[in-house]
């Protein structure tokens, strides 16, 4: 039994299950399948055909590759905007013919010939673009028609002039350079093509026209609603496609100097297959130039290998057809299931054995014994606020709290019946503290650390920290800044509860029980932000100890309170002060008697403690059971406890029925009252502390005027 537990513990310590979900969440994961296909292709065909992967063989294909890549990019750009261009092969043939006719037959200068050929392509693209973009014809049928028409025009001309166009009458050094020269071992076609690829990549990812194409392909209606020129964008993609296909035709002309009726036949299928195999979605909006490059490489290797294997007539086309249908099937399934797969594998529970929970029974001798002292709290703002968190009072006695709507609400002293929106932050403010100058510092979930002046001016202090080397998730951005406190030297220490979940899913982190959180220090003197502790189990409340050299912090899922020294002789040391709490600790704040208040957000249940030692059970539960039905700690009850410097529990306040305060996430003492907040409650409670010092305020305590 103990053996099995040790094995489970080791298994979950050393196997990083959570990484799979994080990788699947990355946007580059879409490239994984094409890369895998490329490797597979190389392995299979490389073993069937000797010398396929040799350098010479690859170089031999490079000019051909440049042409193919241009056509694949043409197809990709149209596909990204949600369309399809079947006329690329015909345009290719047209440009080839036009180039040869103008140059060889009519003797035009090559610097005029090339732009004219590209212009021809652009014109065919424009026809497509107007019909599809502005007149809203079906892309498939329209380009099929242009495919046939352009092809028949080219065929008519070839019938007439095939011999004449192939006989060069003029010489041009530029043309020879394009045709035969190699720069850095690469043909000119390939270099031009790669330059265009880089340009296209930058346009699609960094420039406005590229974003428009992606937006229109992603959701045509949303793009239209956002005010994008949808019709023009679509039309432009066909023009671009025509130009790229035409350029490919020019290079083909330079390479082979021949116009036959089979030029560019079947090229559209090849390009389409390459684009889809590369991972560009047929539905539009998902794809990249890099995917087009990958797809082009795969298809080029495949088609050349098939030629060398000398399959019987039609065999090559049949194989390409199968590849296309397989790629389309994978694309459809991947797009459909990617998110589902990611959600099902993202939550990755790990092993956690908590110590035995202390007794809480009513009437027991335990310091945590159940009572109902919070039964008769005075209520503030009942039903007017959603999720009041970390109530705090200023020097004038006004009460502030963050809400789920992203506001910081101010209730006016002395009776707290009137209120105003102090500021709107945009995220749920979870931790509040006043500095010496009366500025309100706030940890805002999803945003970071902010300072709000008495004049309501909001300043961002920090929203990113140093990125850790081995984290797959980009953990430099702050995801769930939670609670903060200010050291005597002005440094701000704050907790980030988890780097793996957003505010709306914070409870799901309980199912993982992994150390996903960290404590971060912001130094206003240098403006720097550094992570000082990581791998903490949902670090939550932070409060300065009275020695001015250390702070207490609570780890919610770890059910413990620890102390960390940031200055003095014990700098950098960490010590657990309260190891096994009966519940899940949240915020910590100073009390007037020299102790510290600690809110319990929920209570431990034997069944959940047991589930924590069964990561497999939780994993299967997350996969099988609907999220609303998941087993969680019991967060419908909470309490407030008080502990002293040594971690001894000196007081315990319960709302035993959970009537007013089912989940207590924060509390603050001020002039003899204790103010209670709850992150999913709709009221602030106010409890008269028996024997509480009616003059004590937290500010005074921090300024050293009181203890």
């Amino acid at each position, binding site marked *: 039994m103990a053996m099995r537990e040790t094995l489970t513990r080791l298994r979950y310590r050393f196997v990083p299950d959570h990484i799979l979900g994080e990788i699947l969440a990355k946007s580059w994961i879409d490239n994984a399948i094409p890369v895998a296909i490329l490797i597979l292709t190389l392995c299979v065909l490389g073993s069937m055909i000797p010398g396929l992967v040799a350098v010479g063989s690859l170089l031999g294909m490079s000019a051909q590759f440049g042409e193919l890549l241009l056509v694949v990019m043409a197809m990709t750009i149209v596909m990204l905007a949600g369309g399809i261009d079947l006329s690329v092969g015909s345009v290719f043939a047209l440009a080839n013919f036009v180039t040869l006719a103008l140059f060889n037959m009519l003797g035009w200068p090559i610097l005029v010939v090339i732009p004219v050929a590209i212009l021809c392509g652009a014109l065919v693209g424009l026809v497509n673009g107007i019909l599809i973009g502005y007149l809203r014809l079906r892309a498939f049928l329209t380009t099929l028609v242009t495919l046939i028409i352009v092809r028949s025009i080219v065929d008519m001309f070839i019938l007439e002039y095939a011999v004449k166009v192939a006989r060069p009458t003029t010489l041009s050094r530029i043309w020879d350079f394009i045709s035969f020269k190699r720069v850095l071992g690469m043909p000119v076609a390939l270099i031009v093509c790669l330059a265009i690829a880089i340009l296209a990549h930058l346009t699609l990812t960094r420039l406005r026209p590229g974003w428009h194409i992606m937006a229109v392909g992603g959701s045509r209606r949303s793009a239209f609603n956002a005010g994008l020129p949808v019709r023009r964008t679509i039309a432009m993609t066909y023009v671009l496609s025509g130009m790229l296909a035409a350029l490919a035709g020019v290079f083909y002309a330079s390479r082979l100097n021949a116009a036959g009726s089979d030029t560019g036949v079947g090229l559209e299928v090849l390009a389409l297959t390459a684009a889809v195999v590369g991972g560009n979605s047929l539905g539009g909006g998902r794809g990249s130039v890099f995917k087009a490059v990958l797809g082009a490489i795969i298809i080029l290797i495949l088609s050349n290998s098939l030629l060398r294997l000398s399959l019987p007539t039609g065999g090559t086309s049949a194989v390409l057809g199968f590849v296309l249908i397989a790629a389309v099937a994978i694309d459809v399934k991947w797009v459909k299931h990617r998110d589902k797969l990611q959600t099902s594998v993202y939550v990755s529970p790990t092993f956690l054995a908590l110590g035995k929970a202390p007794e*809480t029974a009513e009437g027991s001798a335990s310091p945590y014994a159940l009572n109902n002292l919070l039964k008769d709290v005075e209520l503030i703002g009942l*039903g007017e606020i*959603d999720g009041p968190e970390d109530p705090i009072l200023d020097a004038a006695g006004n009460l502030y709290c963050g809400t789920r709507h992203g506001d910081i609400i101010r209730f006016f002293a002395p009776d707290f019946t009137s209120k105003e929106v102090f500021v709107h932050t945009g995220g749920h403010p979870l931790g509040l503290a006043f500095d010496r100058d009366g500025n309100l510092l706030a940890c805002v979930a999803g945003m970071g650390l902010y300072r709000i002046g008495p004049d309501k001016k909001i300043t961002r202090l920090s929203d990113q920290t140093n990125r850790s080397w081995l984290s797959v998730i980009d953990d430099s951005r702050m995801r769930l800044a939670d609670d903060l406190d200010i050291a005597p030297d002005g440094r701000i220490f704050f907790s980030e509860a988890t780097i793996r979940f957003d505010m709306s899913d914070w*409870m799901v982190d309980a199912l993982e029980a992994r150390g996903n959180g960290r404590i971060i220090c912001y130094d206003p003197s240098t403006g720097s932000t550094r992570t000082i502790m990581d791998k903490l189990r949902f670090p939550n409340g932070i409060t300065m100890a009275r020695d001015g050299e250390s702070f207490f912090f609570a780890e919610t899922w770890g059910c413990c309170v620890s102390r960390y020294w940031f200055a003095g002789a014990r700098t950098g040391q960490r010590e657990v002060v309260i190891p096994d709490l009966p*519940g899940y600790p949240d915020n910590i704040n100073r009390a007037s008697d020299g102790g510290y208040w600690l809110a319990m957000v*929920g*209570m431990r*249940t*034997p*069944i*959940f403690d*047991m*589930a924590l030692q*069964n990561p497999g*059970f939780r994993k*299967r*539960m997350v*996969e*099988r*059971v*609907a*999220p*609303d*039905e*998941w*087993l*969680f*700690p*019991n*967060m*419908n*009850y909470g309490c407030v406890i008080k502990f002293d410097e040594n971690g001894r529990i000196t007081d315990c306040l319960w709302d035993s029925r*959970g*009537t*007013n305060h*089912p*989940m207590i996430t924060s509390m603050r003492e001020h002039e003899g009252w204790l103010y209670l907040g709850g992150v*999913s*409650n*709709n*009221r602030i409670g106010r409890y008269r502390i028996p024997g509480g010092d009616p003059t004590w305020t937290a500010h005074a305590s921090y300024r050293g005027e009181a203890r």
Partner: protein
Amino acid sequence: MIAPIRNFIDRIRGNGRHAITTPPMDGVLQPNTLIEDAPLLAPISRPDNLVRRGEEMLFSSGNQLMRINGTTPEPVEAFPHAVNALAASTGNALAIALMDGSVIVRGGKHDGFSLDQRQAASLTCITALCFSGEDRLHICQGSHRNPLSEWKRDLMERNAAGSVWTLDLSQKSLTKIASDLAFPYGILADDKDSLVVSESWQSRLISIDPSGNVRPVLEDLPGYPARLAPQSSGRGAWLSVFAPRSQLIEFVLREDKFRADMMRSIPSDLWMAPSLTAPHSFLEPLQGGGLKQLGVMKPWAPTRSFGLIISLDENFAPVASWHSRADGTRHGITSVADRGEELVAGSLGGDALVSLRHSGGLPA
């Protein structure tokens, strides 16, 4: 050959026998708050086994046999053991089954009958009784592995160890007519001499003919059915459903190691298992949807307990239902008795007798 492969695939995909889906509460079973809003007849500790003998309404509470007159409950008789089940005959006989397996008859043709010890020894978990005429008494035994008070364990062990017996009062003979049932918890004799039994852990009603053939009558109930009672109109029946099925419990029922650990190390009222009572301790399990938001528990929250009474027509098809939902307290209703226009329901988990109005089996 196919079956193990199918079973293996189902286990991975969560299909077939491994599916944890629960039947929807829709149509006739659409939730309402009729039980929660109904007037309280009397607060009683753990009321169970409501039966009507003539004009008299009897029920049990622990080891007490009680009677309710109008709205005042009064004790009738106390027994040495908890009363497990009651049944009344048309001839005013009352059969009483106790926890130790003894069956006693008061009044009627066989007044003073008592099952002898040797026979009673095999009946360790009597859950329901019903008369056929005056001479025959049908007995449901929930499980031969666990007593009635340990029903939760019996479910979690996934037992099908229940049986149905017929006791001939005149010949004092006891015959088993069906076995290997998954906790039979309610019984009703219909006109054609066959018995309708609620098989709790299968969430269904079955019909058992005199030769012992079992045929499902009503399947896929959204909860665990308890006792059946005749409607006063003479047609149709009342079915009390004592706890809901839930996805998470269905899931736990398929996690053998977890369940075994749970049964070994945790007290049964804190198990992730159905419950008769609404939650009252923070040590009980909580599911995500059951979290109080803005101080309110949502009625549709996932729950381990509820109150549900279903009105069935003469073919045992549901026609109407009465509910107490997740945010209520009148949970764990195990028995009802019909007195004309009024249906008295006993909430075993909510310590209450409530009075529901109906006309011909439909809410009035």
